[in-house]
């Protein structure tokens, strides 16, 4: 799209975090695949199952550890302006979201155990009908954003 991309990126540490999530997922898939291969030998199942047992974990590792986190991180952008918040995210489908400040009802930050370890936080912005999340911001940045969004949002009164 011609429109300028939102100015800010999320923390580079998010990339590492997503790779860890992808890694955990890959380990589970690999274990399952290993189980399949062993079972194929043991019960004399058709041999092409072994091929699947090799290809699927490989694809999974490539996609969820390397490719998808990279694209997702590159795509994730946000910008908080005085009158509105603009977000951009999505791997295959790129979403551009515009939330006017006057529509924001409240802002929350949350932290899971892994996020806390990396000193990151997720910020979620709620309107009367929708919730938008910016994942993996630096804690300070998230805190600052929450403060500024809620003070900017307070300026305007509510229609709903």
């Amino acid at each position, binding site marked *: 799209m011609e429109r300028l991309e939102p100015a800010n990126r999320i923390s580079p540490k998010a990339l590492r975090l997503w790779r860890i999530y992808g890694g955990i997922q890959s380990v589970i898939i690999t274990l399952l695949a290993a189980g399949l291969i062993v079972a194929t030998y043991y019960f004399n199942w058709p041999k092409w199952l072994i091929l699947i047992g090799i290809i699927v974990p490989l694809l999974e590792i490539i996609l969820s550890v390397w490719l998808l986190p990279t694209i997702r991180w590159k795509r994730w952008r946000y910008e908080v302006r005085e009158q509105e918040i603009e977000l951009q995210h999505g791997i295959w489908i790129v979403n551009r979201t515009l939330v*006017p400040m006057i529509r924001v009802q409240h802002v929350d930050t949350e932290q899971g155990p892994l996020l806390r370890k990396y000193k990151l936080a997720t910020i979620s912005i709620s309107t*009367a009908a*929708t919730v938008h999340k910016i994942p993996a911001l630096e804690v300070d940045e998230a805190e600052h954003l929450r403060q500024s969004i809620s003070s900017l949002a307070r300026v305007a009164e509510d229609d709903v």
Partner: protein
Amino acid sequence: MSEAKRLHPISAVMNFLKGLKDAILPAIFLLVLNNDESGTWLDWLPTLVFGVLLVFILVNGFIKWLRFTYRIEEGELRIEYGLIFRKKRYIPIDRIQSLNFSEGVLHRPFNLVKVNIETAGSSDIAQAEADLTAIKKPEAHALEDWIQQAKRKTEADTDSEALESNAHQADEGSVVFRLPSKEIVILAVTSGASGVVFSGLAFFGSQFGEIIPYEALFNEVVEFVQIGVFVVGLASFLLLLISYGIGVLLTFLRFADFKVRLVEDDLIITRGMLEKKQMTIPLNRIQGIQVKQNLLRQPFGYASLHVESAGGGVGDKEEHNMNLLPLVKKDSISGIMAKVLPDYQFDVDLKPAPKRSRFRYFIWNMIITSIIAGAVSWFLWPIGLLSVILVLLAASLSWLQYKDAGWDLQGQQLCLQSRGIIKRTYYMKKYRIQDTEAKQSWFQKRKSLASITSTIKSGLGGASPTVDHLEVSDIETMLQWYEPEKVQKNTKNKPT
């Protein structure tokens, strides 16, 4: 009006019936499950449990009625209920958004009414509404007037009920819409359920012709199976037809005497024959308008108009997506609505999706139905070939989806139109739109197309009309329009 009042005793019966309704499934399960006789006292256990349950529900219904009181005190509607856990719910008068009345079969003989109190957007769903199961009609009207007066901040004597009911008589407002009997019949016949029946009819018609050649081709066993299928088909079709008939009748009863009145700043809908309902929509709670046209109504120029309103209860989905004009000629909508919501423009020229988007509208529908048709034809050769009809249907639907996609901007109003199976046109005001989202897939990007979604509040959630595969520059125009103006620093642009 400050002394605590009970509901009409009939509500004890209603509580009982409601409890019975809720208990009926487990009860049936219980009775069916323990059907084998062993000759001991255990045989009587289900019956015993059932009996105890029945008594419990009866007593519970009675106690519920006994402990439920409501009163008006210090500008609050105060409801207290519960036996062991005494619960008090105090609703400040200015938080009450609207009162909805309904009269069931049990209400009618006693001149009673059920009052549903909707409050403005409480985040706690359970707190968002309260019901008075059965109170006398004059009392309900007195309550209504009292709320009206309190809202107008006129310091009238709220105790004199006579005065209030007089005020109520005078305040009938103007009727903006009435549904004639003929149109109720059309409404009932062309409702969603009918589509299933008509397709069933078409399918059955096609089956009928094929029964004869098969008789010559196959042996008696196959013939027998065919007849078996035929009989089952016939039976299920008859069942469908009967349920359709019942559906038509129910719709007729539901929408009988349908009337929309405009009383000051509220829209009041009354409808129903056996069960009378009255719903109130404050105009300032309206978030957007949806016009729907299904495939049966569209050829005759009929549409239905729904109002999306904010807040309200959890119960009926219908309550937040109110059917303001259940059946109306599409070209008369703007005439009717000009009296009700003059800010909304219903005569708009929609800008269509560009020609090159046609492919995108077709591709997925065609791929999916082709795969299904291919599989069905392969496994059920040759009769499975009939599934090619599915592909043709998908193609015509895709064409309609492409033709019907459109958007329009007019001042403060955004109009988005698209079709799933039903054609939906949303009319939304900028200051009611919660957010706007542009989406672009890799395929869309190659052809510089994109999709748009705007979300308005509807009930406790939201409604998100989407239009797919529009010109990227059009999407950008819409985003630009939606973006708050930067020059007006700290001035709230809040029309009306």
